[in-house]
Every structure is written in structure tokens, then in C-alpha cells.
């Protein structure tokens, strides 16, 4: 019985090690008239593995504070927040947060929760994941 328990413990430890993730994360911005309208990578997880953040101006959006995390920094494949402050000039900004090398094994259900916490009148926010 003790051998069975030992074998099981070793197996579980092995599986835990095998599912360790080395995922990477990127934050990119895209706006018409900026960088030729081409998507530009603004931050990666160079300081903290699995976590990236960007704070700064981009186009007509004077302040952008964007965070994104993936394992090992977070438990879930993708967690992200975006606060964007616009100047008086109207404009469309696309924020891309992308986690790569996320390990997957077998049939998995993905549940995406998309939330708009604050949005001025007349603005639209289209949130999506794929």
C-alpha cells in the first residue's frame, strides 16, 4: 500500500512539473494615422515573466494604462485591464493583448469574461477574445 501511495505521489509531482507553462505575453496598439496604422508592440514580459504593462500616450489617446498577465504570473491563460483616456479629438484605438505558448492538453472549455466598467456617452467598446 505504501508503494502505491509513493508511486502515485511521484506521478502527480511529475504531471505538475510537466504542465508548468513558459507562456509569453505582449501588448500592442493600433490606431489610424499612428505608425502608419500598423500594430505596434508596446510591452512584453521582460521584467516579470508572464506579466506586461504599458503606460503612455498613443495617438489621440493621451493616457493608456494597460496590463496583461498569463502563467506563471497568473493562474488563467489571460487576465487584462485597460484604462484609456482620450483627448477631444475622436479616434479609434485597438489594444491587443496576446499570450503565446500557453500549454493545452485535451478538450478544454474557454470562458471569456468581458467587462466595460466605465465608458463615456457616445463611445463604443468592442471587446473580444480568440
Amino acid at each position, binding site marked *: 500500500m505504501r508503494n502505491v501511495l509513493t508511486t502515485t505521489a511521484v506521478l502527480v509531482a511529475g504531471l505538475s512539473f510537466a504542465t508548468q507553462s513558459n507562456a509569453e505575453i505582449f501588448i500592442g496598439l493600433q490606431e489610424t494615422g499612428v505608425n502608419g496604422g500598423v500594430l505596434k508592440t508596446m510591452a512584453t514580459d521582460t521584467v516579470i515573466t508572464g506579466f506586461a504593462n504599458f503606460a503612455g500616450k498613443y495617438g*489621440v*489617446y493621451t493616457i493608456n494604462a494597460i496590463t*496583461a498577465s*498569463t502563467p506563471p504570473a497568473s493562474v*488563467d*491563460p*489571460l*487576465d*487584462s*485591464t*485597460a*484604462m*484609456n*483616456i*482620450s*483627448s*477631444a479629438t*475622436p*479616434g*479609434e*484605438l*485597438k*489594444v*491587443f*493583448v*496576446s*499570450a*503565446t*505558448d*500557453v*500549454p*493545452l*492538453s*485535451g*478538450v*478544454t*472549455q*474557454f*470562458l*471569456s*469574461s*468581458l*467587462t*466595460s*466598467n*466605465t*465608458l*463615456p*456617452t*457616445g*463611445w*463604443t*467598446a*468592442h*471587446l*473580444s*477574445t*480568440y
Partner: protein
Amino acid sequence: MFKGIGGDIDLAIVSHSGLISVTGIYDLTSNGSGTALSTLHVETIQIPEPSSLFLLGASLTMMGMFAHRLKAKSRA
């Protein structure tokens, strides 16, 4: 598409073993000055495959049989 505060969920089932990428997109359109705050959260739930369920069932049955035998032995 949000025109004010709100929440939405989206479900997808993926059958794949290996490395994948997960991307979230915030597409904001402003008509003047203001502040938008949005969040994206993606979580996964593992769905057992039929073969895994069979193995789990077989293991539980074997353990039950083993326990029954031990009990019978200790009684004798």
C-alpha cells in the same frame, strides 16, 4: 459591443494538445474626451475525455475491490 457599462461572457470548446495562443482585443471608439476602463479575463476548464473517464472509473473500481479484499482478509 458596449455602449456603456456592462458585462458579457463567451464560451468556446477547444480540443488540442500542445501550445496555443490566446489574444484579447479592446476596440475603442471615442467621440471626444473621456476615460474608458475595461477588463478581459479568460479561464479554462478541463473537460475529461471518454477514455479518461473510463480509466478513472476502472481505477475507482479496482480500489474498491482492493479495499473489499483487505476487509475480508482482516475478518478471516
